[in-house]
């Protein structure tokens, strides 16, 4: 009796975290504040741990911008990214400035798409994923599905 009453609660708690398959990602407040200021805070589980480490080491020259952080925030976000990173090969990328938009998985998922007007790069996730800012990339929040 007790267990059955607990189950809905457990489900509710789990719904808040990255759920394999439903494409919702938990984002830490520090990550959103610092890594969501110039662009949408990218889902941490779409790149591998080494790629995030490379990204964090290069923040002084980050895609042509200075995105450097103070030491404390840098460590906090680096550590958090390492716990959230993907362990799968399909999310691995090479290169000095890793782009999650260059993984095998991303290419496969985004084949033959044309960018909406005023969108200059596929990295502007929120141009199509209307709830990207909340970490929600489920099909229900795709722009074409909303029309």
């Amino acid at each position: 009796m007790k267990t059955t009453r607990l189950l809905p609660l457990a489900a509710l708690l789990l719904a808040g975290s990255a759920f394999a398959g439903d494409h919702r990602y938990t984002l830490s407040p520090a990550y959103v504040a610092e890594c969501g200021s110039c662009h949408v805070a990218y889902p941490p589980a779409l790149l591998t741990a080494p790629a995030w480490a490379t990204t964090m080491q290069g923040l002084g020259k980050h895609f042509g911008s200075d995105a450097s952080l103070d030491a404390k925030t840098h460590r906090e976000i680096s550590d958090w990214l390492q716990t959230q990173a993907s362990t799968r090969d399909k999310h691995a990328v090479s290169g000095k400035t890793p782009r999650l938009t260059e993984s095998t998985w991303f290419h496969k998922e985004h084949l033959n798409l044309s960018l909406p007007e005023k969108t200059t790069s596929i990295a502007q996730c929120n141009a199509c994923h209307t709830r990207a800012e909340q970490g929600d990339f489920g099909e229900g929040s795709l722009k074409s599905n909303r029309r």
Partner: protein
Amino acid sequence: MTVTKSLSPIAALLLASLVASAHAQAPARTPVDFQATLLAEARQANPAFKAFSAERGQTFFTATHGNDWSCSTCHTRNPAQAGAHDKTKKPIDALAPSANPRRFTDAAKVDKWFRRNCKDVLARECTAEEKGDLLTYLLTVKP
């Protein structure tokens, strides 16, 4: 005895959270506070320095400084308006305090973005004089 014993952990907890919140929230600052700090810095660097100029600030804001970007590339030529990041197109709230009361109220945030954006635009940090001129200009901008 038992009372004090059971109370003290709670008191310690309350105290700890008070200290923590006081720590997390740096003293509230206003744009005018920043202006005063910058003036002191500018005079320290150059004892002959008189006063900031909104006109110089506006010129600085809209000019390029040897690279492609000016401050106005992302913040627009009208700082009372929302801008957008030149590369990512993400919207940026207005920079003028009259249009956006959260601007120039958080020292860590102000320092961080001056450092970053000046490096991106001027390939160096901005001087106190440049920052003060700019802020003086922003304070003249009406919403």
